[in-house]
């Protein structure tokens, strides 16, 4: 499976600078890079130092809407050329346009069988300008959406930002599970950015952010956390996910969870979802820490605070008969 990571962030946040730095790392130098630029003249791809055949530009439209089909075709075509030996690469990095909504992009990556049979989504990295980020988040819903869907948030330009504490608090409220990293001119080990979100060490970092069950509210976006001591019967999981998708799918931006399943309590189940699209349940070999409680975080708009927990309890009660 070819790992695919998405680099997103608002206009001017420093995505291309980050990508340039990443491509200078020997382990990432041979990545296939897909750059989406919005406008008639693409410039970003000119700034990237990588081999011509491994760099693809998708111009004339935003990746999340106009050129979404192009993304699918590009990935499929790339994979075919890789298979035939025409190109060599071990991972794909996608730089979105500054106005892109990552949801349709992830949807394409996850739901198109021709893509998902050969590719694995590893991480969504959102670059946030440390100087202008707070204002951008306040003014542009695209930037908020990009921050909420990140597996990792990267503050750029921290060398010229006087104080980032308010911005970091805002980002933590929007996406409590995503670690906030810092880099100047993209100087950060790429493995820190792109490690798989389901890796135990990464998962642990995310879980540590979830301490208080309930909900946090920020500009119409709620972060709802569910914490459960008792293991859940396995049958509850698909029913719960089905109900979430059916009744709250349009309002659910992101869902992540680690669940202790009664039938296999030693192997936690990891849940990931974007809107009503759910990643297949992943089973870890072991718990990432001594904390073996089930923890679930939902980020959404207009979902009543206690509805998911009440639904889960009702399903659990039925499953236990």
């Amino acid at each position, binding site marked *: *499976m070819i790992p695919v990571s998405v680099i997103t962030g608002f206009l001017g946040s420093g995505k291309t600078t980050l990508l340039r730095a990443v491509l200078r790392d020997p382990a990432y130098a041979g990545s296939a890079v897909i750059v989406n630029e919005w406008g008639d003249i693409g410039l970003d791809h000119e700034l990237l130092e990588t081999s011509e055949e491994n760099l693809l530009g998708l111009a004339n439209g935003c990746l999340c809407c106009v050129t979404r089909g192009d993304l699918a075709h590009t990935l499929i075509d790339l994979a075919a050329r890789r298979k035939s030996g025409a190109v060599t690469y071990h991972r794909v990095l996608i730089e979105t346009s500054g106005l892109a909504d990552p949801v349709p992009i992830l949807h394409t990556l*996850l*739901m198109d*069988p021709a893509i*998902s*049979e050969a*590719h*694995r*989504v590893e991480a969504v990295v959102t670059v946030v300008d440390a100087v202008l980020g707070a204002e951008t988040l306040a003014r542009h819903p695209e930037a908020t959406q990009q921050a909420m869907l990140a597996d990792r948030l990267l503050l750029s330009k921290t060398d010229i930002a006087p104080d980032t504490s308010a911005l970091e608090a805002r980002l933590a409220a929007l996406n409590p599970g995503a670690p906030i990293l810092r880099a100047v001119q993209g100087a950060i080990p790429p493995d820190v950015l792109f490690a798989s979100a389901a890796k135990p060490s990464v998962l642990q970092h995310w879980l540590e952010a979830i301490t208080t069950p309930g909900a946090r509210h920020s500009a119409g976006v709620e972060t709802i956390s569910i914490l459960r001591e008792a293991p859940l019967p396995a049958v509850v999981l*698909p*029913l719960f*996910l*089905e*109900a*979430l*998708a*059916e*009744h*709250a*799918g*349009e*309002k659910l931006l992101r869902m992540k969870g680690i669940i202790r399943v009664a039938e296999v309590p030693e192997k936690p189940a990891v849940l990931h979802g974007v809107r*009503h*699209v*759910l*990643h*297949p349940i992943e089973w870890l070999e072991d718990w990432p820490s001594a904390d073996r409680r089930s923890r679930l975080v939902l980020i959404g708009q*207009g*979902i*009543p605070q*206690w*509805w998911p927990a*009440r*639904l889960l*309890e*009702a*399903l659990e*009660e*039925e499953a236990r008969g």
Partner: protein
Amino acid sequence: MTPPALRALLADSLTLWGIAGRVEIADAGIRIITGDQVLHVTQAAPAEAPMRWWLISKVRRRPAASILGLLRSLRYALNATGAEPARARVAAPS
């Protein structure tokens, strides 16, 4: 499921679907009052298994085998916006 727990879940569900209404504990279960409808939810008798719930309106009684089925029936009965279900779509295993 206790009547208060069911009442709370159904009240939250109405909010989620954007339906204005009241959800009350009634003698025989839960009463849901919206602009133009009054619906009742009652627990099925043990002899009616595998049915667990009944959703009762003026014109019909709908059975439901699970809380999931009950929510689906209720949403349709209330003609909530977006009642067309967005089913879970599971990405291919990696």
